[in-house]
């Protein structure tokens, strides 16, 4: 057949070279059927090379007149895979057939398995490459409006729909790595995640913030047993991680003293004499209030050890360790505790303890403590030497109130006594300041309602 109108009417679509080292390839699937109109740039087939399945585009406008090579057959680069009739040309399949080189004609091309014609309003991802991309980027294509021809979803559509990359500062990434924090859980407001976000998260973790507990719906009050078990396991892990880190990294020191509570408890009894259960003050609240005020008089124990240096707390946010009957513990925070009166401290403490035990604490009530108080006041324990919750630099441990012999004015008396132990992070604060704190704490206890 000589050159002429008929041959002008045929444009070959050949096996492309998709890499410098590609010599042959095979059609995985045809994405067009015979008779389909195609445009320059449309993906018309998926081709398998030695390495990959790749989308293959067509470089001409026209109508597909014949699919020559069926899927699965390996052919050399340059082999005609299909014939196109340019727009405006009359397809002449008879002529075309005569022109087809002797390749792959032994088996007639079967009906392509996955041919479809996109219809308006219906979104489809046709190519495995794009399907893979959508999966990798977590894009749900079912809800995507394609911008391609006939509503087809394009690579751009998928990439636009993908979640914007979370922005995390280099320092935040480093701190997260060092503290074992999963950056995907970090909250940062509208900005990028920065170092402080990680450190806040670390301090929340240190207070054994275990999210499954937090997520118990308020109206349910009690999580299903299985959830509680899961939560307990996770809390155990969190405690394990934080306490191990604290024990390994923080050079603890302890200073301890015994405190005569006679005056304190007498004042408290007087205070409670005409109070109902709803307004009564417990010794625990007196201890918390005194501890908070002592922290303002020795600010060196109140704050965080961050990234190699001590950052003083701008206020006293007192963490209160609450042991859970289900195992584990939480340390909700009385914020600005030193600025509040005893009654407010009692109210908040009662509220926090109750909600801690009923799984209704908010995350914001957990983090951010600048110093922590732990009391084992209900049992037989005389004294406790606690472990600091990083990044805090001090924790005050109180034993149970017991009657003990007490030397007073050269006489032996029996007094209600509590053993107080202050554990300090020696990197940040020295023992002298720890003992000053205990002295101040003792003083405040003598005037509980002042």
């Amino acid at each position: 057949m000589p050159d002429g109108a008929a041959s002008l009417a045929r444009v070959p679509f050949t096996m492309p070279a998709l890499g410098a080292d590609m010599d042959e390839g095979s059609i995985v699937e045809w994405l067009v059927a015979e008779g389909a109109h195609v445009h320059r740039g449309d993906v018309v087939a998926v081709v398998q090379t030695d390495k990959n399945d790749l989308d293959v585009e067509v470089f001409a406008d026209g109508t597909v007149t014949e699919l020559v090579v069926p899927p699965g057959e390996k052919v050399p680069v340059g082999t005609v895979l299909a014939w196109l009739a340019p727009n405006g040309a009359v397809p002449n399949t008879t002529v075309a057939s005569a022109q087809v080189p002797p390749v792959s004609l032994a088996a007639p091309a079967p009906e392509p398995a996955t041919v479809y014609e996109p219809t308006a309003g219906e979104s489809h991802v046709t190519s495995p490459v794009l399907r893979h991309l959508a999966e990798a980027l977590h894009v749900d294509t079912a809800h995507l409006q394609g911008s391609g021809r006939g509503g087809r979803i394009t690579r751009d559509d998928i990439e636009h729909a993908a979640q914007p990359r979370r922005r995390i500062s280099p320092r935040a990434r480093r701190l997260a790595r060092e503290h074992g924090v999963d950056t995907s859980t970090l909250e940062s407001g509208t900005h990028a995640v920065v170092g402080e976000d990680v450190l806040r998260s670390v301090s929340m973790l240190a207070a054994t913030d275990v999210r499954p507990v937090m997520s118990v719906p308020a109206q349910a009050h009690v999580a299903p047993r299985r959830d509680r078990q899961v939560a307990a396991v996770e809390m155990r892990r969190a405690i394990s991680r934080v306490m191990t880190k604290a024990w390994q990294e923080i050079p603890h020191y302890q200073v301890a003293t015994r405190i005569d509570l006679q005056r304190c408890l007498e004042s408290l009894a007087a205070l409670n004499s005409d109070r109902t259960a709803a307004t009564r003050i417990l010794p625990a609240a007196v201890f918390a209030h005194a501890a908070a005020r002592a922290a303002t008089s020795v600010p060196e124990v109140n704050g965080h050890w961050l990234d190699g240096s001590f950052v003083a707390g701008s206020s006293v946010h007192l963490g209160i360790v609450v042991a859970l009957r289900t195992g584990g513990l939480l340390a909700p925070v009385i914020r600005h505790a030193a600025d509040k009166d005893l009654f407010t401290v009692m109210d908040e403490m009662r509220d926090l303890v109750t909600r801690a035990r009923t799984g209704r604490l908010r995350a914001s009530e957990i983090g951010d403590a600048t110093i922590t108080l732990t009391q084992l006041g209900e049992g037989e324990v005389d004294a406790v030497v606690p472990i600091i919750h990083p990044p805090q630099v001090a924790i005050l441990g109180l034993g149970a109130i017991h009657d003990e012999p007490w030397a007073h004015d050269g006489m032996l008396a029996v007094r209600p006594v509590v053993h107080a132990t202050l554990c300090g992070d020696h990197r940040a604060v020295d023992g002298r300041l720890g003992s000053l704190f205990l002295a101040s704490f003792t003083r405040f206890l003598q005037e509980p309602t002042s």
Partner: protein
Amino acid sequence: MTTTMTCRDAMREAIREALLHDDRVFVMGEDVGAYGGCFAVTKGLLDEFGPRRIRDTPLSESAFVGAGIGAAMNGMRPIVEIMTVNFSLLALDQIMNNAATLRHMSGGQVGVPLVIRMTTGGGRQLAAQHSHSLEGWYAHIPGLKVLVPATVDDFRHMLQPALEDPDPVLIFEHALLYNAEGNLGDDPIPPVDRAVVRRTGHDITLITYGGSLQKTLDAAEALAGEGIDAEVVDLRSLRPLDDETYIASVRATHRALVVDEGWRTGSISAEISARISEAAFFDLDAPVGRVCSAEVPMPYAKQLEDAALPSVERIVAGVREVMATDA
């Protein structure tokens, strides 16, 4: 006791002192003698020290800078004054190909203990051939040392260590600073190659030098009103750069902004930014910001020149951007 003086007087005092105490010192440059110096820094010195030591030169930057190099090689301690940094390009061959290289290419045999002083910077509506800040260019060249005094103390006391240096030292004096007054301290200045924290702060490190220092300090004060506590580092030397000081500051504040009157592209601010990335990347909470001169030849018209130069407002805006940056 403190004395108040201008940076001009401080530099003149420094030159006087050097001339008085070291016979090897002489001053050479265009109009340094009879005219009293284009910026009056050397005013009065001709009368005091005579024409042998206060040498007016022809308008031959390459020859008299080269002469300074040769005299320094031959035992003298010349102070060469170039009127402006733009004119120094006429002597760039001597500065780059000779002063900076002689020690190295002679295998350590030849030293060039030369001091070259020149004015730099814009802000005086002197347009596109008298206003640029090319100290960053010179800082590119190994073999040179580049000092950028910003305070009366540094104007008064940087010259002597520069003269004592066995290698060529370029001192870039921002022209707007000559009239700036300040208290002359009694204490010796820190070594000239150390940066100094001029203002402490916790939130961001502002790194600057020379004519931009006061603007940066003013910006830091303005930012304090917004609750942004900025630390300001005065580099004082662009070569060598005191990495230790500004990197330590950035490690503490986690944010940095460089203020540099040079053009942004290929500038010393680019170098500092790169070094912060190299040394403190994992301490950063935001990309390093920069406030530089607009990338145009310096325009004449006041409002255009103002817009081209770093200003307190631009520095404040730059800081806000870094503080709010999505990293």
